[in-house]
């Protein structure tokens, strides 16, 4: 179906080879994962398939790419539209119409199809992706998973033979991601569709895919079965790291396989006695009592009471719309409570202004670029120094320690997700706040960026700060948080140590916990520690 023959790619004005002499063939009905760290060329590889690279971006392409007998040298991307459907990272960026049904029909309108054919195909695809109930809904009111399903439906309705998805689940919570991936799995098996997908969170996809293309950096890419690739790959999901750590002969890809393979190990192990970490004495920094708050016209928080101490890393979890962001915004003083009381360092945070506020609470929103309005990294850092009245160069120093090798002249929006988050964190940290609040910090971060974020958060907490993060990423929570607040419908339904909360909920348990249950281990490190 897709053949890459000795493909090399270089972009103009760049000396770095994106891909070097890559050859592989994807047959019909295969489900292929493209993995690699940020900036390694995953998106370039995906866009080579339908010719967007180099026809849209420019570049030198050596070798040949043939899709279903058509070479991308001879045909522009439009000429492959009937063969290849593309779905991007954020479905909202690609939508044209307001209503689900209209959006699905839009692509066919542009291909000038007959109305009766369109009618029929829309019905088919609505059933295929279980969207029939949503057909008249406005797209803006759908959840992230539903929106991504609509995006896939709009691609599928043109009857492509190949579906290309660029990180389709990175903006989704675990349940919505599961929903999207299982639909892809079904499409591959029921329709014989060829699917090529790129993804950062490998733990979500590896059990579904037939083969993996691993871009190792410097243009070198290898293709092979998941077992072959994951045995040696530099980046690996927790389940694979566990296999490696236990020196198992073969890599297991699903929790079921892994549980079978580790039966003996579990039986022979016992939980290490609960170690009590010697911690610095901590003081209460945040107290919330009977907080009620609204989001739009909806009650977002109802009768929430809690206290958070210094040195604590608290994860706020829960479904989309459970009130996580509202809680964070209330603590940082952006949102006024309807009733009840929020005290941050014994003051009402909504009364704080300017530097005083910046010195008590640092807030990093879901989209870190919302904080960045400078025209270069350097300008941004200088502005932060000035705003917070610290010595010139302080912010840049923090940044350099967080994200090495960042060029000061780059525009903040041209940075990678991880670098941009690093810059936003540096700007916020330059005022030395006592409390750091992060909303969904790991969206779009690769494993390397995530582990440096984890290390950073731990250091900051050791220095006596309180850190609160809202996230869907259970693996992150398992690594970093000591305490979890679980919100549902604006109420706290669980509040306790990470181990207790994560282990009691099957949907939110991290992979290692699922494998090792009933032993109370959340991460590969926990397992290794007990082994010694």
């Amino acid at each position, binding site marked *: 179906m897709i053949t890459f*023959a*000795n*493909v*090399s790619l270089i972009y*103009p004005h760049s000396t770095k080879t994106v891909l070097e*002499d890559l050859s592989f063939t994807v047959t019909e009905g295969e489900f292929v994962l493209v993995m690699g760290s940020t900036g390694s060329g995953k998106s370039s590889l995906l866009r080579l398939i339908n010719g967007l690279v*180099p*026809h*849209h*971006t*420019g*570049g*030198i*392409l*050596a*070798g*040949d790419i043939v899709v279903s007998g058509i070479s991308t*040298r001879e045909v522009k991307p439009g000429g492959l539209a009937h063969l290849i459907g593309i779905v991007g990272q954020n479905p909202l960026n690609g939508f044209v119409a307001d209503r689900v049904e209209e959006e699905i029909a839009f692509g066919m309108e542009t291909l000038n199809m007959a109305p009766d054919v369109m009618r029929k195909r829309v019905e088919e695809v609505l059933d295929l992706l279980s969207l029939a109930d949503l057909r008249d809904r406005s797209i803006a009111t759908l959840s992230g998973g539903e929106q991504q399903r609509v995006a896939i439906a709009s691609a599928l309705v043109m009857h492509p033979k190949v579906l290309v998805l660029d990180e389709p689940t990175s903006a989704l919570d675990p349940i919505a991601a599961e929903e999207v991936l299982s639909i892809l799995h079904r499409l591959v098996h029921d329709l014989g569709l060829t699917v090529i997908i790129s993804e950062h969170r490998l733990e979500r996809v590896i059990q579904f895919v037939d083969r993996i293309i691993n871009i190792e950096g410097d243009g070198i890419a290898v293709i092979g079965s998941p077992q072959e690739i994951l045995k040696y790959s530099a980046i690996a999901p927790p389940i694979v790291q566990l296999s490696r750590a236990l020196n198992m002969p073969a890599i297991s890809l699903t929790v079921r396989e892994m549980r079978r393979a580790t039966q003996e190990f579990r039986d022979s192990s016992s939980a290490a006695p609960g170690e009590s970490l010697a911690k610095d004495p901590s003081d209460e920094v945040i107290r919330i009592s009977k907080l009620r708050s609204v989001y739009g016209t909806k009650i977002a928080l109802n009768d929430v009471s809690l206290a958070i101490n210094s040195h604590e890393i608290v994860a706020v979890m829960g479904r989309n719309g459970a009130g996580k962001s509202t809680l964070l915004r209330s603590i940082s003083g952006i949102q006024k409570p309807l009733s009840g009381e929020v005290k941050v360092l014994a003051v009402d945070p909504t009364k704080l202004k300017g530097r005083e506020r910046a010195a008590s609470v640092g807030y990093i929103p879901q989209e870190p670029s919302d904080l960045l309005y400078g*025209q270069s990294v350097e300008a941004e850092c200088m502005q932060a120094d000035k705003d917070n009245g610290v010595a010139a160069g302080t912010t840049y120093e923090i940044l350099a320690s967080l994200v090495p090798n960042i060029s000061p002249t780059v*525009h903040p*929006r*041209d940075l990678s997700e991880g670098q941009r988050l690093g810059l936003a964190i540096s700007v916020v940290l330059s005022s030395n706040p006592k409390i750091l609040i992060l909303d969904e910090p790991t969206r779009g971060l690769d494993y390397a960026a995530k582990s440096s974020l984890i290390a950073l958060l731990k250091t900051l907490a050791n220095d006596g700060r309180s850190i609160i993060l809202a996230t869907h990423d259970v693996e992150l929570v398992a690594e970093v948080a000591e305490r979890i607040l679980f919100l549902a419908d604006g109420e706290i339904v669980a509040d306790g140590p990470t181990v207790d909360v994560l282990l009691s909920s099957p949907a939110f348990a991290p992979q290692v916990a699922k494998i090792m249950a009933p032993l109370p281990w959340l991460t590969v490190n926990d397992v290794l520690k007990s082994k010694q």
Partner: protein
Amino acid sequence: MLSTANIYTFRKRSVVALALASTISALGFLWPFFINAHTKFHALNNNLFYWVAVPIALAILIIEISNDRLDAKSIALLGVLTALTAALRPVGAGAVGIEPMWFILILAARVFGPAFGFILGILALFISAFLTGGFGPWLAYQMFAAGWIGLGAGLLPNRIGKNWLRGKSEIAALFLYGALASLIFGILMDLQFWPWAIGSRTQLSYVSGAAVADNFHRFIVYHFASSMAWDVPRAVFTSALIVLTGPAVLFALRRTQRKAAFLTPIEFASAREKVQKEA
């Protein structure tokens, strides 16, 4: 040599169409000065011109432009900037000429060139008419005038002598252009409205068949009496916005232009050639 598509530029045929349509439209603006009673070309016929000829000229122009192959990237840019410009127009409610749209049209045209600026002006006025309900014979004139303003901003030179027109000198040039364009827009709008606006019995009215100088004098007096209260604030407001937002907006637009990779070379080397080159 292959390359990616360019931002939209006029081809020879579109230039001819533009010149023709502009001439017709210019006649539509200027007829009060050179029509006299002897040509039997009465106000009624002029009315016809007003309703029919200009819209037709405009329609032909748009068809000609869309016959050219507009690349997806140009369409995307055009769509977003048109929406933005059109949406900004009703924001100032149009009172005393405060229309916060001209600065964005001028800045975008400056970055993306005269052809792009011309279409942007035409489309933005057309689309904003949906928002303001401003449909009528004047719309065709407004569209042309805005198109010309975009065209002119796109034609501002990139360098004067050896010096690049960038930074402060660029903002200064755009500041002057913004003020000038706002005033000229006011004059043009008055011109197309004047013969109908105040009846035929006042001292400032258009007199069919009077000498050009006479009518011109009447028009200038009418213009200053009626419209300076609109044009001067418009010019001040537009120029102020250009100075305030210009550096940031120009930077953002130029960054977009760079990222869109217009006219970037494409090369297809065979795998063997590449190996040979390296060897």
